[in-house]
């Protein structure tokens, strides 16, 4: 089973990286990659670089900023492969983000498993696309959400969608906060917002306009909110 570890953190997360956090991350990566548990992952640019996309009444609405106004924002992710959610939670507890912010654990449901990919092609930018629910949209307004498969097929064949998945409902999520042995695991997602992450896709596009175009074609752009945010590149570190 694959699980997504969603790293969340409040503003100022960058300043919280100290020697202990770096050492913990290095050890985590050594073990998670060395044992084949960690499949993919990476840090995102700060939420100020996020753009949200939705389509209402046929009109494309593009907005500066992340999908929800929350204290903690998504800062990065890992997809890991392990036997059970309990094991996934154990990996989350060891990750320094669990005490620098929080780590939400969600199982990937449906779709092809995530596989590791090399870095972006020359001249391309990678974006995390978070597919989110929008409680402001009344279900009867748009009817049943259209199937996502045609979008997945089109964007994958164009080479702009690398991988992605729907996530299990937030009710089954676990969130880890604090430093072991005192880390606390709670049921539910990291943020108590009405908008919630329902799935994700990793895109590789020429620029933000292409990412917006791809996001706007996703069925959830009409029934929810789609956020696109660039990954943090190594040169920035």
């Amino acid at each position, binding site marked *: 089973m694959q699980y997504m570890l969603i790293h969340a953190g409040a503003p100022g997360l960058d300043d919280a990286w100290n020697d202990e956090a770096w050492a913990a991350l290095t050890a985590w990566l050594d073990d998670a990659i060395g044992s084949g548990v960690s499949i993919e992952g990476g840090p995102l640019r700060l939420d100020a*670089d996020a753009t949200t996309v939705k389509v209402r009444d046929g009109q*494309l609405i593009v907005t*500066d*900023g992340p999908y929800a106004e929350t204290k903690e924002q998504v800062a990065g992710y890992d997809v890991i492969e392990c036997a059970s959610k309990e094991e996934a939670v154990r990996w989350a507890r060891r990750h320094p983000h669990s005490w620098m912010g929080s780590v939400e654990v969600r199982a990937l449901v449906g779709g092809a498993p995530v596989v590791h990919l090399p870095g972006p092609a020359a001249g391309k*930018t990678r974006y995390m696309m978070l597919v989110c629910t929008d409680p402001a949209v009344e279900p009867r307004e748009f009817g049943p959400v259209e199937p996502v498969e045609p979008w997945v097929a089109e964007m994958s064949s164009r080479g702009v969608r690398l991988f992605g998945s729907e996530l299990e409902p937030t009710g089954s999520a676990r969130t880890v906060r604090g430093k072991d042995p005192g880390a606390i695991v709670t049921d539910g997602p990291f943020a108590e917002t009405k908008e919630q992450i329902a799935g994700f896709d990793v895109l590789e596009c020429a*620029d*933000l*306009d292409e990412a917006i175009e791809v996001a706007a074609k996703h069925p959830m752009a009409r029934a929810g909110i789609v956020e696109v945010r660039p990954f943090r590149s190594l040169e920035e570190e």
Partner: protein
Amino acid sequence: MAVLDGVFREEWGRINAALIHQTGDWDLAEECAQDAFAQALRRWPRDGVPDRPGAWLMTVARNGAIDRLRRSRTYRAKVEELAVMATRETGTSDDAEPDANADDGGVADERLRLIFTCCHPALAMEARVALTLRTLTGLSTAEIARAFLVPEATMAKRLVRAKSKIAHARIPYRVPPASALPQRVPGVLAVLYLVFNEGYSASGGDDVIRRDLCDRAVALTQVLAELLPDEPEAKGLLALMLFHRARQAARVDDSGDVVTLEDQDRSRWDQAQISLARRWVEDAFAARRPGQYQLQAAIAGCHAAAPTAQATDWPRIARLYRHLADMTGSPVVELNRAVAVSMADGPAAGLALLGRLEAGGALAGYYLLPATRADFLRRLGRNEEAADAYAEAAALAGTSPERRFLNARLAEVRSLGPGGVGSDL
């Protein structure tokens, strides 16, 4: 040096746009443009103004960019690209003296690229406005901060954040393809209109800077209208701005009080600007693709065409407002429509429309709503009710000239007593 100020306004955006395109570095572009103007300020008084000041500045700025990039050693490819361009344009090597006959062809399109990038929908509206003013008109961060009444540090942060998002989220530096223009042009026009209104409506702050904002908004809109001849709304917005600016001198009296349209000295309206505006609005209408700016311009044109307030074609204005209200669904437009209807068909008809608007609640707290009701009631001779409405409006009004106007009317209706004779117009 007065000539430099004019050249600065004319050329800053072009030079900045060209350098951003060639180097991809917004800060470098700004520094080099700034240096070029500083050199001009030192050298032109001594050596005389070159025949083609824009080309001179462009060459100096580009050479500065090459120098800086060369020193940084990491952008070899870009240096070569710039050097090739410099040679192509001046026929000399990159370190030669600026050539007054250099060709600056194609830079107009560069400015268009810059406008669309600064006004990208993925940037917050306030960031779009700030970035447009800084990079295209050369208004300093301090001046923009003063115009929008925020601390300079806040404005500086806003600009840094916007430029960072452009770089990291990879907002493309280009004019959108024709198929995307209908989606993107309204966003650009909205920024320009906001800048103009901020300058025109005087919701507080420094007068000189505010007038300057209007001029800069007009200049940029003209660039857009000329470079996008198939976008009638750009022409409509330009016409609208010109009609408004033509009335600027008559809008405020010597003591700084607001003079309403009906009381303005129409001999002080700028007829040259009015006829220019009229040409733009006719040009726009010829495309048969009406839009909100074109309709607003047509309405402003009706006012401009009336030699006296009494001669205003109110039925036509009321008709245009109805189209505009259908198009925008805006309650402010409905309010204006009620005013036009009151002039065409009498204050009672206006009051009926206003009642519907008040019931909707969308304009609660907006001082012009009770101010308009007060005016209708005064004209109907219902002075007591009018006085209450004027008092309510004065309490909500933002600036002191508006408050003074409302209080003067309040005193006037009070002096007439509860059943005094109302003057309809």
